[in-house]
């Protein structure tokens, strides 16, 4: 056995108060295997009794070098890496990526594909919020919430399996459209979900919203002001719970979001309970979008006809020389993108998911940067937990809805 090095306080001296140096306050390690950290997050806490004086998050345990890996692959192949990023929001990550590629090479997308993308991304948003609701309920000892939420999430994952063959790592959206058209069973599966889900949201609310134990743990805990939130680049439901009406689906509509009628729920309280209420309202709004998009969904092609970027269907390859050449070129070499850089962002369940894509004229990107919302949302955590009890930290961390795959990339 090699010697285990003792962690010295020297490295963190500038981050803790002077009382920690004299031993008056205690340094406590929380995680990386603590169940309420939702993955592998380590928090170094400076405690005065049970009150948190300082909190130093330590991340990187799940760093897999996704950006570096994407830079070594062609534009089509790099997409599979985006699934592994935020594993609660795979469709949303695919959407962010394909929109960025389409913007970089200036590619059109058929209307039906746009509609399908909206339906599936909104279902994914519901699934992601359900995981958040279930796990944060679990953190606050509402065990049954977890089981109820995963029951509904299962139904959504079944729809994903129906369309893409995969429950989680879907890679269903492709530059220029979607992989293939949805099967005939798709509409019924989504309609079944639409039919039962509003009642289920009411059920969750009867269990939690007015529950005195739940309210005690949530109300006026973890207050985050609008100014601090913006300073720390916080986006998504957390920002909206602090009173800022900012949703990229409304502000900068993409994928045809401008056609749908939905509200952006906001609250002004800025506490843990407000974040809970915003997300519950978002479940209803997302369902509204799914209903409208499904009713409006037109028939037609689901992939662009631009053969320079989108491979031809299998049936054409046997009869058309051109198609065979395109197919061969696209899958061996890939398509070239201009020597330029773009930034495009979509609204993920956690906030602004941005993608900076820089081409170098060849088939591989020179630089892919993923601006992931959880990273910035976590960086504000030390500011909002100060002065709270350790038990409240669990509630606050649950309300920020971080996904470690999204933070560490």
């Amino acid at each position: 056995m090699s010697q285990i090095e003792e962690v010295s306080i020297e490295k963190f001296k500038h981050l803790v108060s002077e009382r920690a140096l004299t031993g008056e306050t205690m340094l406590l390690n929380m995680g990386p295997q603590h169940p309420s950290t939702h993955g592998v997050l380590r928090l170094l806490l400076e405690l005065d009794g049970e009150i948190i004086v300082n909190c130093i998050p330590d991340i990187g345990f799940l760093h897999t070098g996704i950006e570096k890996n994407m830079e070594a692959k062609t534009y089509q192949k790099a997409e599979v890496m985006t699934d592994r990023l935020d594993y609660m929001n795979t469709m949303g990550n695919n959407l962010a990526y394909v929109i960025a590629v389409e913007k970089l090479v200036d590619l059109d997308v058929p209307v039906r594909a746009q509609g399908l993308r909206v339906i599936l991304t909104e279902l994914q948003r519901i699934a992601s919020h359900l995981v958040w609701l279930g796990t944060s309920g679990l953190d606050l000892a509402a065990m049954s919430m977890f089981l109820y939420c995963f029951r509904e999430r299962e139904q959504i994952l079944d729809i994903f399996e129906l369309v893409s063959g995969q429950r989680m790592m879907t890679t269903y959206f492709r530059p220029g459209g979607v992989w293939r058209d949805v099967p005939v069973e798709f509409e019924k599966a989504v309609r079944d979900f639409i039919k039962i889900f509003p009642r289920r949201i009411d059920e969750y609310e009867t269990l939690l919203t007015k529950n005195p134990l739940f309210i005690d743990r949530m109300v006026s805990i973890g207050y985050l002001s609008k100014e601090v939130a913006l300073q720390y680049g916080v986006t998504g439901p957390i920002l909206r719970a602090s009173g800022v009406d900012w949703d990229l689906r409304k502000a900068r509509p993409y994928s045809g979001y401008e056609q749908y009628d939905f509200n952006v729920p906001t609250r002004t309280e800025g506490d843990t309970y407000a974040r809970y209420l915003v997300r519950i309202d978002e479940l209803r709004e997302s369902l509204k979008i799914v209903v409208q998009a499904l009713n409006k969904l037109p028939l037609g092609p689901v992939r662009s006809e631009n053969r320079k970027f989108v491979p031809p269907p299998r049936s054409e390859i046997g009869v058309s020389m051109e198609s065979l050449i395109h197919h061969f070129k696209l899958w061996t070499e890939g398509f070239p993108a201009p020597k330029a850089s773009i930034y495009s962002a979509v609204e993920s369940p956690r906030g602004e998911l941005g993608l900076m894509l820089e081409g170098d004229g060849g088939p591989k990107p020179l630089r892919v940067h993923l601006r992931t919302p959880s990273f910035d949302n976590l960086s504000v955590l030390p500011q909002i937990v100060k002065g709270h009890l350790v038990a409240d930290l669990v509630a606050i961390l649950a309300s920020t809805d971080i996904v470690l795959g999204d933070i560490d990339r």
Partner: protein
Amino acid sequence: MDKKLEPIVKAVQDKFGATYEEFRDEVHLFVNPEQIVDALTLLRDEHNFELLSALTATDYWPQTAPRFHVIYQLTSLEKNLSVQIRVPVNGSSPKASTPERASGQCEPSRSIPTATGVYAVANWRERELLDMFGIEIDGHPDPRRILMPEDHVGHPLRKDYPLGYEEPQFTFNFDEIDLRKPYAKE
């Protein structure tokens, strides 16, 4: 370019002599490293760019002047505008333990001042720059690695850092490769 963005770009151009590029309706302003904090402060205070959406860099290795572009993506919630600021940074960082440093071919480096005072989010994002690209940040309050282990050598997102594949083992060379595989040591 968006009509609302024109006066803002002009203001930055007049004050800092910045040049700009445009691609697919996105504006990239080029600013010198010394001016970046002033430029960010100007945009935040006078033109309502409240949110620093992204802070990252691109490595143009083997080109060394500039080797990096440090990129600041700003968003104005009130005016619904976006602008990108790019700061060219020359050479490799002197403290970085990269091969060119060892061979003494390192260009004199130029670091950039920290933007933490303007946007607090820059704190973690600049630590990421330091970790992934080895770009020195002057006056950073907490200059530690953020994603990689503390004792890691090199900066993974640099273009001269190898991607690192695992050697495939076959029956005829299994033991040979097994010997140099980096297993955890007892």
